[in-house]
């Protein structure tokens, strides 16, 4: 029980923002009241008193509750005069004092934890919070390509404001929250709600799908306290939350949610329990509760039965880590924290459990010196390859940034352009080609695909008619769940070849093979990460791609692409282990036919992102992000550059200078060479922290203030009020009064001097923060200034308003008159 209690305490204090239901307008008052609790004469800590009553009875069972209360409040001389009172007063007061100190310490830690976590907790429905601004900024900037080729992927978050259709269901939840504060289950009024919020802080789905609420043991036994209450389940509340969840499952997303994308729902009504310090949060995959301000922590059972927890740090085993993507790690921002990411076994081989031991059993280095063994990582030595192509778009060529294929006039059924569901290996659908596509990707399933290396799927070269066959196996030797990921992998190869001339082999050398395969496997491994599979192994996306590239290019030798210690079998075994776990959990799996017939939004988008976007009369549709806009602009410019003639004097391979006689009329380009360069990396670093120097400085000032030379220890410099004379003694009465006043003043002065140190530290840390931010903001400012400068320059570009004449003209005045300024 002790371990259990301590775990709970540790979890409570350090892992999350816990706490009580307090109206959000009373933070100051709550803190004031908690300070009062330290003086039992002013205010009694009811929780502490309850437990001292229990403990005191074990010391002397003849004591009544009133007598114990009198002892606690230091009134036993008048209210509890029996021998048992006098005898037991000291041990009982000691228990009360240590309980009070314990609880006060816990509260203070709680508030510090809250204040630090408040801005970054990540459990929120407020789009304006820091936890949600980052995904929002990311969403504004990143292109679909970035999301698919990133080796450090992050959650995509979409905020959706609900309409009043769901209000009645939200009201049901609010009613249940209110009901919890009035229930009479034996707990103080707010404790049950507090326990419920603790229970559903990270959502209700895991509990709800794990077992039936009604069959859960909801008996508080004989001791109504919070510790037990947080293990209860609140079925009415759970059912109300579930009704909202089910209603939200029918929500129609426009555009559809991508794989791994998270929808966060907002509604003002979610905040309607703020008088109880509680709010509701809702995502597409879960719904839960949380505290607005978790500033109080009425730990009702720091003293449990007859065992007193002496210090909060007196714990033995750390709390159990939550599963990946569950609990704390289910929240969009939190899942990117270091606690929720796997540690690469290859790059970070040092395990604290494996360290050498010193004399006392702790960690030691090779020389036997005691060290704290946490983790040590080495830089990745995975070799990088860059793929080059002679023509076709390179910007955003790989990935998924277009929502649907580039649309041409006259095609109603777009799916026919890129999918022929009935097509087999020898089908020819060339008649479906149009001016808006470079190729037609034609998937088909087979029991025996031709393949490179040890791969089991294959993307054929583009034929003369523009068809790109992609063979997906009906079954995969290691596990059939890989079928979908092989389809993604081969689609990348199709993207690589789509813009190339027919029959281009993109992997004739080891370098070319490694570059092509690594690119394709990065996208594949990114998909494995997005689906939460890779996180359950010890591999990063980069390592995953490196290992699999070696397999694909083994015709060029063993580990031809890069040196990685892990062999493919080991990696595959780890993957298969996760897949088998998914089988046990009943996670649905797609067969080859299903992958082709009902492609995921990611696969659809990848297939769509192959066409030449800038061809005349072709329309492209994509999500409005800066990255996607730049993909469009970039591809258009590339297309213009490679296939047409835009810039006088620059001759692309397919045009001739003789065709353009008007270049002599061209003004000098004022923008040439003026595009701003991005500032060199201006890294920020934390300012030097010199606590010893600061303390020394304070000591020196303290001595100087009181007129002493610098003394060691500096407490010798303290002002001694007993040596001063501030009032004349006239009578014995004033003598005692003055003495008392001096003692009071002395105590106050010591207290104020001591507290002033925290003011000094406050100022110093503020100065450190300012120093740090100065550089940090400067870097940000430089980047933004460059962006602004570039945009201004783009704005000053002068575009001609007329097309060039086809008939001969005699002078340049034609252009001067008709070109807008």
């Amino acid at each position: 029980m002790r371990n259990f209690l301590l775990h709970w305490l540790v979890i409570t204090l350090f892992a999350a923002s816990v706490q009580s239901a307090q109206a959000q307008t009373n933070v100051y008052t709550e803190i004031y009241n908690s300070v009062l609790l330290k003086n039992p004469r002013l205010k009694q800590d009811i929780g502490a008193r309850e437990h001292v009553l229990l403990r005191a009875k074990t010391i002397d069972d003849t004591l009544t509750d009133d007598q114990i209360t009198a002892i606690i409040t230091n009134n036993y001389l008048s209210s509890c005069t029996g021998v048992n009172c006098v005898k037991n007063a000291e041990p009982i007061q000691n228990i009360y004092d240590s309980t009070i100190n314990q609880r006060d310490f816990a509260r203070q830690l709680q508030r510090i934890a809250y204040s630090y976590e408040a801005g970054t907790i990540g459990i929120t429905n407020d789009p304006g919070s820091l936890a949600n601004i980052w995904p929002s900024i990311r969403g504004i900037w990143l292109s679909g390509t970035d999301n698919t080729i990133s080796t450090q992927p992050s959650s995509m978050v979409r905020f959706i404001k609900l309409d009043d259709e769901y209000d009645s269901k939200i009201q049901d939840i609010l009613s249940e929250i209110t009901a919890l504060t009035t229930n009479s289950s034996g707990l103080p009024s707010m404790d049950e709600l507090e326990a419920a919020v603790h229970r559903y802080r990270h959502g209700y789905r895991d509990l709800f799908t794990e077992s039936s609420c009604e069959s859960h043991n909801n008996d508080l036994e004989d001791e109504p306290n919070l510790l037990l209450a947080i293990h209860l389940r609140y079925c009415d509340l759970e059912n109300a939350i579930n009704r909202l969840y089910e209603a939200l499952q029918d929500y129609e997303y426009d555009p559809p949610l991508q794989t791994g994308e998270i929808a966060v729902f907002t509604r003002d009504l979610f905040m309607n329990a703020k008088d109880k310090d509680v709010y509701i949060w809702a995502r597409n995959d879960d719904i839960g509760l949380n505290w607005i301000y978790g500033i109080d922590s009425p730990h009702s059972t720091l003293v449990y039965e007859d065992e007193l927890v002496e210090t909060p740090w007196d714990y033995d085993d750390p709390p159990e880590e939550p599963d990946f993507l569950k609990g704390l790690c289910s929240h969009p921002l939190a899942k990117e924290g270091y606690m929720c990411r796997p540690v690469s076994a290859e790059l970070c081989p040092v395990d604290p459990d494996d360290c050498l031991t010193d004399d006392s059993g702790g960690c030691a280095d090779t020389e036997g010196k005691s060290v704290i063994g946490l983790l040590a990582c080495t830089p990745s030595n995975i070799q990088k390859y860059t793929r080059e192509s002679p023509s076709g778009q390179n910007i955003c060529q790989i990935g998924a940034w277009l929502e649907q294929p580039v649309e041409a006039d006259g095609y109603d059924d777009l799916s026919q352009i890129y999918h022929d569901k009935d097509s087999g290996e020898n089908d020819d659908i060339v008649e479906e080609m149009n001016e808006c596509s470079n190729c037609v990707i034609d998937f088909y399933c087979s029991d025996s695909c031709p393949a490179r290396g040890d791969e089991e799927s294959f993307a054929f070269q583009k034929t003369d008619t523009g068809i790109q066959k992609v063979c997906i196996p009906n079954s995969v030797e290691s596990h059939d769940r890989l079928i979908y990921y092989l389809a993604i992998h081969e689609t990348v190869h199709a993207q690589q070849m789509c813009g190339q001339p027919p029959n281009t082999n993109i992997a004739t050398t080891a370098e070319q093979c490694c570059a092509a395969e690594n690119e394709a496997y990065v996208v594949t491994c990114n998909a494995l990460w997005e689906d939460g599979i890779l996180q359950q192994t010890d591999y990063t996306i980069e390592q995953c791609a490196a290992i699999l590239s070696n397999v694909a290019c083994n015709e060029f030798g063993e580990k031809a692409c890069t040196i990685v210690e892990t062999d493919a079998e080991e990696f595959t075994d780890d993957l298969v282990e996760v897949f088998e776990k998914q089988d046990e959990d009943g996670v649905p799996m797609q067969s080859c036919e299903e992958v082709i017939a009902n492609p995921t939004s990611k696969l659809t988008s990848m297939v769509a992102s192959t066409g030449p976007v800038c061809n005349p009369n072709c329309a492209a549709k994509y999500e409005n992000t800066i990255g996607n806009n730049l993909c469009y602009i970039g591809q258009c410019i590339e297309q213009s550059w490679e296939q047409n003639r835009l810039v006088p004097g620059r001759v692309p391979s397919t045009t001739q200078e003789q065709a353009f006689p008007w270049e002599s009329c061209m003004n000098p380009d004022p923008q040439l060479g003026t595009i701003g360069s991005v500032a060199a990396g201006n890294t920020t670093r934390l300012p030097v922290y010199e606590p010893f120097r600061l303390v020394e400085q304070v000591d020196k000032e303290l001595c100087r203030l009181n007129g002493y030379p610098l003394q060691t220890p500096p407490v010798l410099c303290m002002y001694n009020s007993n040596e001063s004379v501030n009032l004349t003694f006239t009578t014995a009465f004033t003598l005692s009064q003055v003495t008392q006043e001096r003692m009071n003043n002395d105590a106050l002065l010591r207290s104020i001097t001591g507290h002033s140190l925290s003011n000094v530290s406050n100022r110093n840390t503020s100065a450190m923060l300012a120093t740090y931010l100065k550089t940090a903001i400067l870097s940000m400012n430089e980047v933004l200034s460059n962006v602004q400068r570039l945009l201004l320059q783009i704005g000053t570009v002068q575009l001609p308003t007329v097309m060039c004449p086809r008939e001969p003209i005699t002078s340049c005045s034609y252009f001067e008159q008709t070109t807008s300024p």
Partner: protein
Amino acid sequence: MKQSRITIGIIAVTALFFSTYTPFFALQNLTGSLVKPTPILASCSATNDFFQLEYTSITRDNDVVDQWKTNFHDLMNSLTNAQLNDELIIDCTALTIGQFLQPTAAMSEILNTWEPFMSDPDSQKLSRLDIGHVQLELLRQYECALLERARFAETKIGPELVYEMFRSTFAPGSREQFGIKVKELSDETNDQREKIVQEIGITRETVEQVVRLLNGKERTTIIKAEAQCLERASLDIRNASGLLAEATSCLPRIWNSRDVLTDLPE
């Protein structure tokens, strides 16, 4: 003899003055106006209007300490609430941190009405992140006021009791006799001194915990504000890039525009 002592005293004071201030004058001559005058410091006493109460409002059941206590905690409560609940007002194009992260309305009122903030133009540069400094300064003044009252309790409380006695004695129908006993004064004085000692101990700890909490929370405020500005700027850039993409979609119109073979279909 007495005359000579005074003369020596004047010479000593003059010497001390010049020895103290000559380097300052010299420095000022060299640096011009670079040396900033010492800011006006608030005195360590109950001089602020906040601590001035009308005699008519003071009673033995609700004495000065009680009223200060209520008023001060209300003030701190409102400052704290404003800091926690008021919407963040950000001016992304501001040149100073004070304009960028403006103080809350409650904090601004303090800066405009309390010394030393009122008289120091630099205090107008304070931002909402400086709430800790402001609250600790208010606490210092509160402690000063309480200490001053504790030290001069008899002289302060005496007139208050007299005034209260005056009111009750001369109230219509009163049969009380005018006058206060020494014991009454002594009891009231001891009572208030005890309250003051208790109050100082509790308030200092409370305010420091609140300051710690607010500063911890404000730690991320500047990042949050920067992020919000970045978000707004990103939206602007997205609009600009969207327009640019729109413009780029017209590129085919000028492909091979000088080539007779590039007529586009009508």
